[in-house]
């Protein structure tokens, strides 16, 4: 982790007092900021709350919201609740994995996407449902998968292109793409 990132982590820790009960809330904020729980930060959390690192590690590996390895920029949450299951969600999941060239749920090599099954986002009337970041995509079929993912691919591409043109020094209106 960089010095800036460590400072950001310390800032988050500073928002809480050092009660054991705050552990999960702290980890949620760290996960939200860094898209994963870095090892150094967990050590700091353990020291702050005065609990053994094993306790923090146990909590970090118990709850599905947390990840010890970096997650992708876009979280693709495929709902595998019962209603979505009977309406064909497993096949939609397979299609998404195939499209992103993943063998199973996880993060793509370019760290753009993380595919995670979730059990019920509570939109059962619109099954099968996939949530990408904060948008919920209802009534998904295999045929719609590629189009849906492409929307996010385009965004990612655009941001990368802007970043690379800025680096090259062309940081003016010509950076507008797509």
């Amino acid at each position, binding site marked *: 982790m960089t010095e800036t990132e460590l400072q950001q982590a310390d800032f988050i820790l500073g928002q809480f007092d050092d*009660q*054991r*009960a*705050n*552990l*999960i*809330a702290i*980890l*949620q904020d760290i996960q939200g900021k860094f898209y994963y729980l870095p090892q150094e930060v967990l050590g700091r959390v353990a020291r702050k*709350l005065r609990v053994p690192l094993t*306790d923090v590690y*146990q*909590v970090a590996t*118990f*709850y*599905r*919201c*947390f990840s010890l390895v970096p997650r992708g920029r876009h979280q693709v949450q495929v*709902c*595998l*609740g*019962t*209603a*979505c*299951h*009977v*309406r*064909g969600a497993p*096949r939609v999941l*397979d*299609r998404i994995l*195939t499209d992103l060239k993943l063998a199973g749920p996880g993060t793509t090599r370019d760290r753009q996407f993380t595919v995670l099954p*979730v*059990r*019920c*986002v*509570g*939109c*059962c*009337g*619109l*099954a099968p*449902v996939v949530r990408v970041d*904060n948008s*919920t*995509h*209802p009534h998904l*079929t*295999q*045929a719609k998968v590629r189009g849906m993912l492409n929307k996010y691919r385009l965004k990612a591409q655009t941001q990368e292109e802007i970043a690379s043109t800025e680096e090259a020094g062309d940081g003016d209106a010509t950076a507008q793409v797509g």
Partner: protein
Amino acid sequence: MPRLKSVEELESFRAGLRTARDPKRPCLTVCAGSGCTAAGAHDVLAGLRTELAKHGLQDAIDVKSTGCHGFCERGPLMIVWPDGTFYNQVAASDAAAIVASVSNGHVPVEKLLYRDPVSGKRVIHEEEVPFYARQQRVLFGNNGKIDPKNIEDYLNVGGYSALARVLSTMSPEQVVDAVTRSGLRGRGGAGFPTGLKWKLCRENPVPRYLICNGDEGDPGAFMDRSLLEGNPHSVVEGMIIGAFALGVQEAYVYVRAEYPLACEHLRAAIDQAEEYGLLGDDILGSGMKLYVHVVKGAGAFVCGEETALIASLEGRVGQPQPRPPYPAQKGLWGRPTVINNVKTWASVPVIINWGPEWYAGIGTEKSKGTMVFSLVGKINNTGLVEVPMGVTLREMVYDIGGGIPGGKALKAIQIGGPSGGCIPADLIDLPIDYERLTEAGSMMGSGGMVVMDETTCMVDIARYFMEFLEDESCGQCFPCREGTQRMRQILTRICAGNGTEDDLLLLEDLGWLMKQASLCALGQTAANPVLTTLRYFRDEYLAHIRERRCPAKVCRELIFYEIEPTLCDGCHACVHVCAGQGILGEKGQVHTIDRAKCTRCGACLEVCQPKAVRVGTGSPARAGVARDGAGGDMVCQN
């Protein structure tokens, strides 16, 4: 807004609100629950606001986003007040027509009205829609009338009058007595009598804690989400009344991580309640003190179990504790704690306002009041249904649910989530109450009701639930950790056509062991889906085992796809979506599927317009196969 310092101030404030609001003023309400939002409700809201501004009508006509109406299949939903006109499947492009109709003579926009599938006629009001007509929306009725982010809407419909009554005329013992007499049972799943739980907690000394369980982990259930999003004050009011009865000063609401909107609305509601003097140091001048904290879950179904939830609140892993001692004796931080479900808390103001006798008059002998179900799956009208206890499954599926899509045959109804069981179609006249469901091998659970038809494989469903429970088991006790794994392995083998009849005995033994010896209710009920499907659908298991055939044509290793040559028009649509690139054929020619490359993904079936793609089951490669006309089902003759 100065704090309200007494019950009298609250009532006069409320009266003032009602006078200030003109009941005849037009108001366009759009459901903004998670379901309708996903379907585009916010675009509709934006569209309406733009349209009103365009005509300069933004001061004459209000636009409001409301809580979940429950009829998610037909969202986005709208109601135009004061007429009560109910619109479904509204799009942003309809804004012009809607605004026009409201500003000129209030003639409803025909195409947005709900059309009754039986009579073919359009109905105007919500109560006329069959989905709603048979419901008794004691808890959910206000969702469509209020903006959940505005406490004054809640006050306007009578909110916090139960609290006012409690603080000014009742003692804590009287409150507990009222809840007991109402017959209210915990709506989280186990159905423990709520009044008794409160009474047992009061037998232990202060300080005590109060928790609202908003974990709602059952996949397929979203009632708690809708209530927390759509009417969070109803839950908060119930909790304040509970805190009064139990002598509690710190309360917690535990909301699962997957419900960000519910968290947001709840926090806003609590902030507003504090602002208005309904929470905090001196509630309505009564001297009562209560602070409510919202805590987010972190992705663990087991945290819906009371002791696991408590552990999670304490910053530990969600591992259940053996009971006894029960949370009412020793709960959060070792103190006596009452945990109740969202719907249970929301029922408390209703009981106080309308009286325990009224509440006890609804429902059956041992199951009082209304129950909220999420009716989902293979059903025409998906959504949230609130009915009195004792309504039959037949009414739920056909009268309210509108039957099965495509006219397919009902096969089973799964009630109670992963802890519940599958009720077969021939028990469809079963009245829904706690005892009757348990007798049939299922359980009420928190109200998830998943309808399954002839295209659902019950062995696959058993495997699905076991996979879920294996994933969600906390893992601390041996029978659950090991049992869920072993059962899932056996079921996967059976689904792949490699099962034996001995496997069924193993499933029954493992199921028995888990039920008897697991540490918590997750493990004790984990085998229910398997045991009920074995009880009612054994023939499907045997077909998988003896014939390597999946009667519902779901289990991928036992099915094959083929194209009926007489129906194929060569449109080539299937080729574009084929995951295995295994469909051969030129455009305009009859296509064929190469079985060796087919991954059985089913995408071709999805896109085939002339319905030429067929699914077969049983081993097709053997000689002497016969075809039965109906659905391309191949049955082996040897």
